[in-house]
């Protein structure tokens, strides 16, 4: 039994040269698939490790997963009720609109921050141990999904409490959730290589995304006209938030076409940025030192 395993292993030859891995695309593709398969168990272990460590150190536990969007919701309800900010009519009661919006946005942000965060936190391990680097990104996705499920559970409970019954379309909501995680991961993965070297990226993301939030129908309704209407409509994040919200609250999605297009592009970009990530990692590890 053991000898058989040895014989198979012996066939395995590892070669390292300075040549770009792109020079041999078939080998690269084979290695990508092999590492992806090898990543599954490790990613799961890392997820369990990070989540249990995370929740063992808190008293409030999983409430932290929802506290930020919850606070955001309350602030916006206060701002609109008190008349500080004048929000135009929303298709749903404003509290429902802003609560679903901020919750979905928070899921997107989690997904977007995860790759850089988890890779940065694993710098020492990366510098010293060889393991499939994909596992880190996958572990980040797992954690995002776990935290998203907490958010969604609360969201659905709150919606029912507020008298919103989503209907059959809620069955499509997982697709909306999936595309939020997908697009967030793609953006996060794209920023990771540069972000690992230059901390400016990590610091700049919250700033930029805060701005993006106001160009997406999260707390504001879609503007009807003017330059802002164009910006909202062009923003690729708009169809993600709108479609997910519509499915969850039983409205008919208006931007379904754009939603599909954004997802197709995101899947393509995911593969491209995965390749970039793979190619960049050894170079980055070298520059991070040990």
């Amino acid at each position, binding site marked *: 039994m053991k000898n058989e395993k040895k014989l198979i292993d012996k066939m395995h*030859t590892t070669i390292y040269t*300075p040549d770009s891995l792109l020079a041999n695309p078939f080998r690269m593709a084979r290695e990508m698939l092999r590492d992806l398969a090898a990543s599954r168990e490790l990613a799961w272990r890392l997820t369990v490790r990070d989540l249990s460590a995370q929740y063992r150190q808190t008293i409030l536990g999983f409430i932290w997963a929802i506290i930020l969007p919850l606070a955001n919701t309350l602030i916006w309800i206060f701002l609109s009720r008190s008349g500080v900010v004048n929000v135009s009519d929303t298709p749903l009661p404003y509290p429902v609109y802003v609560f679903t919006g901020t919750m979905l946005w928070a899921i997107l942000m989690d997904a977007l921050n995860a790759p850089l965060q988890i890779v940065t936190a694993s710098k020492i391990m990366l510098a010293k141990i060889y393991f499939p680097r994909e596992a880190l990104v996958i572990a980040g996705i797992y954690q995002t999904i776990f935290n998203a499920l907490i958010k969604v559970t609360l969201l659905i409970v709150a919606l029912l409490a507020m008298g919103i019954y989503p209907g059959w379309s809620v069955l499509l909501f997982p697709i909306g959730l999936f595309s939020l995680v997908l697009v967030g991961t793609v953006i996060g993965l794209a920023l990771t290589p540069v972000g690992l070297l230059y901390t400016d990226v990590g610091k700049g993301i919250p700033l930029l995304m805060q701005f993006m939030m106001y160009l997406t129908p999260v707390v504001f309704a879609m503007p009807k006209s003017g330059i802002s209407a164009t910006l909202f409509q062009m923003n690729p994040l708009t169809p993600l938030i709108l479609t997910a919200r519509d499915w969850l609250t039983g409205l008919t999605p208006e931007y379904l076409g754009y939603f599909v297009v954004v997802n197709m592009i995101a899947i393509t970009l995911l593969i491209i940025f995965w390749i970039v990530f793979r190619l960049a990692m050894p170079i980055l590890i070298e520059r991070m030192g040990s």
Partner: protein
Amino acid sequence: MGETLIKVEGLSKKFCRNLKKSMWYGMQDIGSELRGKRHGADGVLRPDEFWAVKDISFELKRGECLGLIGHNGAGKTTLLRMLNGLIRPDQGRIEMRGTVGALIALGAGFNPILTGRENIYVNAAVLGLSKQYVDSKIDEIIDFAEIREFINSPVQTYSSGMNVRLGFAIAAVLIEPDILFLDEVLAVGDISFVIKCLNTVRQITSKSAVVFVSHNMQQISAFCTRVMVMDHGHVQLDSTNPSEGINRYYSLVKHKQQTSGTGEAEILGLELIVNEQEAESAEPTIPHGAELGCRIKLRIDNSRAGANMVVNISDVAMNQVITMPLYSLDGRLNRLPAGILELEISMGKVELSSGKYSITIGVIDSETMEVLARAQGLSPFCIISDRVYWGKFVRYVVPQKVNIMTTSA
């Protein structure tokens, strides 16, 4: 058995001294990688870059153990990181057959909040092993690490020694590689654990091709079938005779000369005398067991007449291995007269373990104990022998009697 598992040809790697530039070069390298170009700017040094590893070639077969020795910054760890696939070479080629395992950075990836048991599973997953496999081995790991009573406590409550023990136990019990890399892993822990590790490593090494980095010459001498001495990224010596490599390493060690004291005495010169002949070179090589003596020239001010003197032999770490206070025949400390003096001292048989040593001389006022002159790092010399032993002082002994009580045990 005996097939070639590692083949390295003309391997080179460069690093950058300047952080900002290093980051920028990293960006450039990613750019060229994405355009399908060769890594590392075609082997040309950019401003502030230097070769950390230059033009290394070797082949290693199963059952062989290659020891990499050299100073800090000689390129040993960089070479190992390239072999391990952590960083890419800038020139040359590495070809390896079989599974690769590494005992490097033990316990990296431990989460301090989680228990020892949980961390075993995480660490094993990092090594690419399944939960089922770990389940079957977990007791063996816990016993090896000798931390059964703490295995369900968070790792942050562990001492550093326990951390290393657990890290080593996980890797040592679980992996069975064709190729193994070891980097200074046995530097910590108490002696009984070190012995256990050494025995385990020896078992693994007999079945694999091993690359072993250590500053511990005893370990190198005990494990390696071959030694490569590195200096500033280059190979200084590649020898299948480990003691030859170790002696070369010692010759690269620099003993820094340093003088201190009040200045009322001064060491003017020191010559070594080996087997009653003056040492032929500045850094003589002395076989173990030779007769060693020295001729010291010194000045003592009139006000300090009657000073005492102590001669020491110091090792690389400036630990004083042998101390020789100067006595007179009446059994009291020798009181040296003032003036310029020349002393000849016989230090007897040097039964020191192989290594590099130097002389430290102190001149002390006999009443006030003030240090008038202290000079260290004088006349460095190498002691060579076939093996490196653990003790600093090595005496070969022949048993006077061996009684055979029974003929089988």
